[in-house]
């Protein structure tokens, strides 16, 4: 994985000192909260309901064991012993003191990490496929391209005060595991008929109050022009994105209002100009980065056979491992969704244990997934049983990846100032209620947001839940039929909302109805797509 050189280190070190200075000026009163706010946000520091929350960047979700252990230590030292993994492949701490934040950042910088641009109206942490470099179905490892974008977007002087936040994702597999088309810019690295690598640009997707699926505006940008093209996309947005209404300020609204064709025309015109400006890093820089992502030293000639005598282990293997490109290896997903747990939460001890396991069994690598789980990308099949036993002993062995208990949930009203309703207790109740039927139901992605900003990706859930405030009472709307990935679709609201207990019952009625209706091999989503909303509505509201 990527390793900082002296330049990368100098950047994060300078940032720590800058932030220390900003906090000093804030504390001595020379910097007003109003002016401090965007600065601390650009460094991932939010003032939440009870304390400051700090969001730490995990570029494209990739970590090594030293970094993971440091995240565990930070949870103990600066938080209350927990970290919360997010849908942006990041980690958040919910109980941070402003005066201590600069020291926390200094601890991060020691392990080549930072919180740069994890919030604010700037280019956020770039996400990617959590199976990158391990999946059998990828064209190429997408992470070097994401790293190139990380460097380009870090402290970009022109794009640090955009109309609104800006999220990019890079994938290189037609099986989209990163919800690429629901980003401001989604890039799919592709290979053309001539065998050349290029970037397909999808611009103007997003969730929030106006969910949109990004259209493709250019199916093949030569790879040695990817940064320049990105710059053109951003410049048109910075100049013409709406600033009169923050709810209409995302790029999806600009692309929608101009129309895809006109937006594309403006981008191409700006691109033609920017090509004359020499802003593209040379291919040698991409190659330098790619060298960091070379395959680890896989053993060859290994067998994929494993001993499945222990039924609990066999179930976990079926649910939580995925095919690896190298025979004899598996990709392991560690579920952070135990029955009744808080989705994405891990204790300091659990975080350190996962770091240790990565060192021992996965070539010192981990990934954070946008579904708020952890991946060990390169585990020998022969090591799975020993690994599983350690996970079991640490309450990390839930066998429910992509099952109904593998819920995405935002922090909701328990922590977040923007939320209208609590998400975590709803997730916990659904997880408990549905646990017995989980394996029977099969694949079902359930996603909960506590407000319309959609941090919990409810639009993209096979079942989505949106918490709203109805005359001072928490109310939950139910959506069906959302999906991320190659066949991205947006969920539709079933009808009137429910209270907290009511929504749990509604989910159960929807899944019972699915079980009664499903044809052979159909997932919940397939049945919904086949028979449509009306019969589900009937079953839910009766």
């Amino acid at each position, binding site marked *: 994985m990527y390793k900082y050189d002296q330049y990368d280190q100098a*950047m994060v070190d300078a940032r720590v000192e800058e932030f220390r200075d900003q906090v000093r000026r804030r504390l001595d009163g020379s910097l007003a909260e109003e002016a401090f706010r965007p600065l601390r946000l650009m460094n991932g520091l939010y003032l939440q309901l009870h304390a400051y929350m700090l969001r730490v960047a995990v570029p494209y979700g990739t970590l090594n064991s030293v970094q993971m252990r440091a995240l565990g230590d930070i949870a103990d030292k600066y938080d209350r012993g927990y970290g919360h993994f997010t849908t942006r492949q990041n980690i958040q701490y919910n109980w941070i003191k402003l005066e201590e934040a600069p020291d926390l950042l200094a601890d991060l910088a020691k392990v080549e990490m930072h919180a740069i641009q994890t919030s604010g109206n700037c280019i956020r942490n770039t996400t990617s496929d959590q199976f990158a470099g391990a999946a059998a179905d990828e064209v190429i490892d997408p992470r070097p391209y994401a790293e190139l974008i990380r460097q*380009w977007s870090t402290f*970009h*002087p022109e794009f640090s*005060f955009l109309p609104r936040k800006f999220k990019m994702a890079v994938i290189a597999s037609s099986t989209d595991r990163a919800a690429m088309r629901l980003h401001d810019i989604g890039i799919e690295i592709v290979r053309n008929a001539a065998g050349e690598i290029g970037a397909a640009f999808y611009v103007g997707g997003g969730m929030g109050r106006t969910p949109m699926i990004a259209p493709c505006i250019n199916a093949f940008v030569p790879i040695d022009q990817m940064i320049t093209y990105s710059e053109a996309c951003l410049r048109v947005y910075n*100049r013409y994105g709406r*600033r009169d209404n923050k709810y209409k300020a995302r790029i999806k609204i600009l692309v929608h209002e101009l129309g895809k064709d006109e937006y594309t025309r403006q981008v191409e015109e700006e691109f033609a100009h920017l090509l004359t400006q*020499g802003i593209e*890093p040379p291919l040698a820089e991409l190659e330098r980065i790619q060298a960091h992502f070379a395959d680890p030293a896989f053993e060859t000639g290994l067998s994929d056979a494993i001993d499945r005598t222990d039924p609990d282990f066999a179930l976990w293997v079926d649910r939580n491992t995925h095919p690896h490109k190298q025979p004899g290896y598996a990709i392991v997903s560690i579920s952070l969704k135990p029955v009744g747990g808080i989705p994405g939460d891990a204790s300091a001890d659990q975080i350190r244990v996962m770091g240790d396991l990565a060192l021992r069994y996965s070539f010192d690598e981990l990934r954070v997934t946008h579904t708020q789980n952890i991946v060990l990308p390169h585990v020998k099949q022969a090591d799975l049983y020993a690994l599983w036993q350690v996970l079991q002993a640490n309450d990390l062995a839930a066998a429910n990846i992509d099952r109904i208990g593998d819920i995405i949930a935002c922090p909701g009203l328990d922590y977040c100032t923007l939320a209208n309703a609590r998400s975590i207790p709803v997730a916990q109740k659904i997880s408990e209620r549905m646990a017995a039927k989980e394996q029977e139901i099969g694949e079902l992605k359930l996603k909960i947001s506590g407000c319309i900003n959609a941090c919990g990706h409810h639009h993209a859930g096979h079942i989505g839940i949106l918490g709203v405030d109805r005359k001072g009472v928490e109310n939950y709307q139910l959506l069906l039929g959302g999906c991320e990935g190659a066949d991205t679709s947006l969920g539709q609201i079933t009808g009137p909302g429910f209270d907290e207990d009511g929504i749990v019952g509604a989910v159960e009625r929807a899944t019972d109805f699915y079980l009664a209706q499903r044809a052979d091999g159909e997932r919940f989503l397939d049945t919904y797509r086949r028979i449509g909303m009306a019969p589900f509505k009937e079953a839910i509201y009766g």
Partner: protein
Amino acid sequence: MAEVQFRFRDDEPVADPGVTVDAFGEQTNAAAVRIEPGDDARDLLPHLDRIRLVEVNFPVFGDGRGYSAARILREAGYAGELRAVGEVLIDQLAYMRRCGFDAFAPEAALDPADADAAFGRYGEVYQPTVDGRAPIWAKRHGIAANG
């Protein structure tokens, strides 16, 4: 009009008040123009040879359109004074400098020591812009800076 507090040029400052972008095309004597966030900086490109001062107004610091305006002018070869006016704050100075601003007239005067620290904070930069600084990738690969 706020005083120019920081200036990175040796020539004599222009004292004329800037006219609007709309009026500038008509006023063939004018040498100073003021860009508001909604203006298209490219409207000025036919007149660059007679412009000596461009003021770019930041009515609120969070409106970042002025950064694009500045870079567009520099990319087109504008070499006169480029002055940031309005809500210009300490923590925006380095970004502005990178986009080609070489004069700063904040509506509220800034602490000079804090401003100095801000201008010099980052010894390295990831992106080439119009300020002639070599980006990190150029240093890594021994490539001379553009501009």
